């Protein structure tokens, strides 16, 4: 019952050290899954992906409850969202280059790629505004409208976040901070953009094609 029964180490001091490994020569950063930040980005993408899954779940639950769909509104226009999808898919190419050039620590190419990505984000944002105009339903009209605005709004939020991230990173790359670990950040930003692209594709089908097929 007393401390004695623990075979105490008696000493109030820490164990002495015995060096068995020297990490002096290890690199101070890396790319992809070797870097903690990559795992952080993946985890955030997982949580946000779960958010998307929930929102999509809500949409289909409402379809299931109502039977007829869309509720008292014509299906949304196709032109702008399709344009959006095309631009978004095309943007995957400069994105891939941004990641590659970043890993090769090519500063000028990375700068160019980031500027392109920022512009692409802004163009997409403009198209997105047109997209909202062509929904033919307001969020406060009925549950269908609410679900549509929910999904589109959620994706726009991610678009905005990544655009902000890209712009800040672009600015950084043009300052004296454009070296070393920044290149790793470019890679993570590119990864996040893939998430924005990947999460859009199901939403595009659900919002614009599903009501036509249903």
């Amino acid at each position, binding site marked *: 019952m007393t401390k004695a029964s623990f075979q105490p180490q008696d000493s109030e001091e820490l164990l002495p050290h015995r060096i068995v490994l020297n990490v002096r020569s290890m690199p101070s*950063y890396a790319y992809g899954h*070797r870097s903690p930040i990559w795992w952080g980005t993946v985890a955030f993408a997982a949580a946000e992906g779960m958010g998307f899954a929930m929102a999509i779940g809500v949409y289909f639950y409402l379809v299931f409850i109502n039977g007829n769909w869309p509720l008292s509104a014509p299906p949304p226009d196709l032109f702008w969202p399709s344009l959006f999808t095309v631009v978004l898919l095309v943007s995957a190419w400069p994105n891939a280059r941004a990641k590659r050039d970043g890993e090769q620590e090519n500063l000028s190419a990375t700068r160019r790629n980031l500027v392109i990505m920022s512009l692409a984000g802004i163009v997409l944002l403009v198209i997105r505004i047109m997209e909202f105009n062509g929904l033919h339903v307001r969020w406060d009209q009925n549950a269908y409208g609410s679900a549509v605005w929910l999904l589109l709004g959620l994706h726009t939020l991610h678009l905005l976040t990544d655009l902000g991230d890209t712009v800040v990173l672009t600015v950084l790359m043009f300052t004296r901070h454009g070296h070393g670990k920044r290149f790793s950040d470019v890679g993570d930003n590119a990864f996040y953009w893939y998430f924005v692209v990947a999460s859009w594709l199901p939403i595009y089908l659900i919002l614009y094609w599903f009501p036509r097929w249903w």
Partner: protein
Amino acid sequence: MTKAITPHELDAVPEVTRLATGERGGVSGARSEADYSPDPKELRDDQVDGPELTARLAKTWGTQKGLIGALSTVDHKVIGRRYIITALFFLFLGGLSAVAMRLQLARPESSLIGPDLYNQLFTMHGTTMMFLFGVPIGEAFAVYLVPLMVGTRNIAFPRLNAFSYYVYLFGGLMIWLAFMLNIGPDVGWFAYVPLSGPEFSPGKRADIWAQMITFTEVAGISVAISVIVTVFKLRAPGMTLDRIPLFVWAELINSFVIIFAMPAVVTASALLLMDRLVGTHIFNPAEGGDALLYQHLFWFFGHPEVYIIFLPATGWVSAIVVTFARRQAFGYIALVLSLIATGFLSFGLWVHHMFTTGLPQLGASFFTASSMLIAIPNGIQIFCWIATLWDGRPVFRTPLLFVIGFFFIFVAGGLSGIMLASVPLDAQVHDTFFVVAHFHYVLIGGNVFPLIGAIYYWFPKFTGRMMNERLGKWHFGLAFIGFNVAFFPMHITGLMGMPRRVYTYLPEMGWGNLNMISTIGAAVFFGSFLLFLYNIVTSARRGPLAGPNPWNAGTLEWASASPPMPQNFDRIPIVTNREPLWAHRDSLPVAAGLSVENREQIVSTVTAGRADLRESTPEPSIWPFLSAVAITILFVGSMFTPWALVWGTPPLALALIGWFWPKAGTEDER
């Protein structure tokens, strides 16, 4: 103090050997060689030793003095300590509200507390216990202990971690401040629509509840991600997957459950806010919405939530059982697998909270089966712990007493849970005091008892002083008796027909005596916590000094000083066994070569735990705090006008840019 390495020890850590001999995995590319060669002027920990090394590292890793310094700190121990104290503070507030409710229910038709206040009280009680205590306390212990246990110097993403603490704190303060201003939510911790919807909950009360969810969700997910990455990437070299302490496993799986469960509740609360504030119709049946959708979303989170509260407790129990049984854990693999199974299964049970909503019977039956099935992984854990104790030499100190209390209470609660899993039985006892009794057995038995054990256990690590053992035993006795006297009779009041969430009942119902007993028990239970508080305060000041490892435990946190220095370890330990301190009794194998002047720590590979990088971790910064302030303004503002999303964003964006903007010469994080 440093000793040369022997070939024998190298065999024990083959991965380390390979690293030490210069093998390097990963991408090869056009990276400049300059990154590999360290700055020759920089002082490294293979150049200094002893007290000088300790002092220099402490200076590098320390928290600055003053208010700004305190708000800028990124030390996981400082943040973790605040997290734990804040969560315990909310536990106390939740307990106070419970005592108020028990006083009201002690007699039939009591006019002590009216229905309006009572509804606010039970909402605050549930919300506080679940969101402001239950989830955060597990994460708080993870923030403090996981980096120590995996043998690193700071949590991954320490600024995110600091940010999450402030968000959590502000969210909790917001809802309690609102309660004091008579804007406390009064719709229950579940806030079912339509009662919490725009038509039946006028004013801001339900908005406060829903927005508090947003706060805790942001905080909860942020910590969960930090913990996951800490466990994945910051483990001490040599800590392979099967050498991870059970506590760390529990926190890891808990963090995964949080990441996948929390988005559901934030979806529910965000949709509720949208319905309430901008007029969407998601939950409005007249316009194509549905009230039950809310329940699906809420319980898709709400059931995993129970395990979010319970999983960290399994970690506490495992740690305490192993240390006090003086034997390594029996069935380590089985314990880890059953933790994982619990995590997965917890997502397949949510409908058992909705058995009385008239869902199709076939679907309901499926959830009966899955709900009963979760008894299996939990059973495995219980049996493995008992087996560990069986073959051990139990030392009956307060932590172990509370764990024994946990067995008695939690198993009873788990078994009454099996009754609730049955659709027909649930139809009788659902939403009665039987359920109240059940989940208090599960949650207090499954979380609070292990928690108190954990506090007695780790208190010397946190403060450097032991807690009073005599008071601890009194505390256990009072808590155990008080708890059972308070909650056992509720099984019977429930079966006698007393529904939950009633502020009073008629004298002719015959529930008076049982309720009076419950109230007396609740008072005793609450009293035991006052004793606990007294013990904490006096022990923290005058308790006997504890050495680094007062319990002679086996895991790495006991290899640091009590309380730990800011750098945790002077050199990063190398792990060759699940219980490193039991395996290395005379000296600790360590890795050297990290900077003494910069905040460097070792990044290792995910499965093999092989040292891979020496990455620097962020310096203290005020920006996470400012970002938390900005996001609080945005969240609170958006309850009053959607335009807050517009004018609230620039300050937040500025704060975030300040956060991520690199300081000259040092590196940062996401």
